[in-house]
């Protein structure tokens, strides 16, 4: 009897230590990631992250927002890694020393959506840029994300090559004591037909559907809203498969030199796993409503 007690007394602290160790260890293997709404809303992360945990033990806390806000989280060191889609801005992020390296993970494409009766007759246009020019010419309603997201960044780039004359709105604010301008390009004299709503992709699709308007969307969110909901939407794809509609996603670990508290090693490991053959094949085989959404870069 006494002996059993003694054994118990010896074992209990051991168990306690193991438990605490386990908790601490478990906590240690959790990283924070800021990403765009499209990776989460499409359901891709729900497939990737459990496999990641199985393979590496890394758990990822996901914060889904617009690309602008996700990059901002990276700049501020709120997260360990970012997973976004705005290549130029990702490059700038690294140039400014906020991130260590960009890993090309996958790509999908943007589509130009519009009401099925196509009031601006853009379905026959030769390119995405020409389609936008057609919308501007017909002054057909166009809904813009207007939220500095990856999609909004691309939309502004498309307007730039469309030949439509643009207006650039500048707002002057003070950043770190220095005057900085925030720029925002949109078609000139478009008050009546160009609506900038500053909301996420899903909301923008619904807005465009409600207003019988055109909009630019990533394919994943469109498929999700078109086929994944009971209510459905009328919007249809007007333009696709254009070189300028290509939409690459990259993952970037946050620079530990700038933010010593970030879990850089784990973030690197996560990025490395994303471009590993296994993750790449998971991405390639991911289907939503029977449709492929993302194309891996290293497959």
């Amino acid at each position: 009897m006494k002996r059993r007690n003694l054994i118990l007394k010896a074992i209990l602290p051991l168990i306690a230590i193991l438990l605490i160790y386990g908790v601490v260890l478990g906590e240690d293997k959790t990283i924070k990631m800021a990403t765009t709404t499209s990776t989460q809303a499409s359901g891709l992360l729900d497939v990737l992250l459990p496999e990641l945990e199985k393979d590496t033990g890394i758990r990822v806390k996901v914060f889904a927002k617009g690309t602008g806000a996700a990059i901002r989280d990276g700049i501020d060191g709120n997260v360990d890694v970012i997973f976004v889609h705005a290549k130029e801005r990702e490059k700038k992020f690294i140039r400014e020393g906020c991130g260590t390296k960009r890993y090309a993970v996958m790509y999908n494409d943007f589509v130009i959506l519009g009401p099925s009766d196509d009031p601006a007759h853009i379905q026959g246009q030769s390119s995405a840029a020409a389609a936008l020019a057609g919308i501007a010419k017909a002054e057909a309603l166009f809904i813009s994300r207007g939220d500095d997201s990856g999609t909004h960044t691309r939309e502004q780039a498309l307007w730039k090559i469309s030949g439509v004359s643009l207006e650039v709105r500048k707002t002057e604010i003070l950043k770190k004591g220095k005057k900085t301008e925030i720029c925002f390009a949109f078609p000139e004299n478009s008050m009546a037909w160009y609506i900038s709503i500053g909301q996420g992709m899903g909301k923008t699709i619904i807005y465009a559907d409600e207003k019988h308007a055109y909009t630019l969307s990533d394919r994943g969110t469109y498929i999700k809203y078109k086929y994944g909901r009971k209510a459905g939407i009328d919007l249809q794809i007007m333009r696709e498969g254009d070189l300028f509609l290509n939409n690459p996603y990259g993952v970037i670990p946050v620079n530990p030199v700038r933010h010593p508290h970030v879990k850089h090693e784990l973030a690197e490991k996560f990025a490395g796993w994303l471009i590993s053959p296994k993750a790449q094949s998971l991405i390639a085989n991911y289907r939503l409503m029977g449709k492929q959404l993302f194309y891996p870069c290293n497959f």
Partner: protein
Amino acid sequence: MQLLTDSFISAILLIASLDPEVLSIVWVSLKVSGISTFFASLMGVPLGFLIAYGSFKGKRILIICLNTMLALPTVVIGLFVYSFISRRSILGSLDLLYTQKAIVIGQIILILPIVATLTIAAISRIDERYRKTAMTLGANRWQTACVIFREARFGIIAAVIAAFGRVIAEVGISMMLGGNAKGFTRTMTTAMALEYDKGEFILAVALGIILLVLSFGINLIFNFFQGRTRA
């Protein structure tokens, strides 16, 4: 700290430059909040009056229900109104969704209980003797009501102020029913939410500072009508 000082100076920069976009946002905010406060008061004050002075069955339950409605989340109101005015529903043909009118409808639902309950509270605090004195002096019901209204005006205007503060600071209804369309339904709060989403915190806080300054000005006006406190 840097964020606050930067934001403060940016707010001054925005005001000084009379930025047309900021002006439009401020105008939409004031207009929408003003209209909804006006209509909510037009309905809520008489409603509060009737409930406070009426004696009918279920009065207490009615007051409890009104008090409960104070806790109605803006998202619920937004969804409720949305389900009536979206293109595929009953009132879809009116094309109300994503207009300022839609915001006004939602906001009236939001603040009507505030105006009504605070009016009830204001009137209930008025000494019963005012009413009796007025009536013994030969006042009819309408005149008696005016006397009471005069006595309760401090509390009633406080109700309107609370309601106005609620709508001008509200973001859920404006976002869901207004849709944050630039130049049409973008209000100060939805603009702030957007700037936060974009990661432009300085602009968001700057707009917040402008909102507070404006509210201060409006409360000065209200205070003028409120008169001096008796206490």
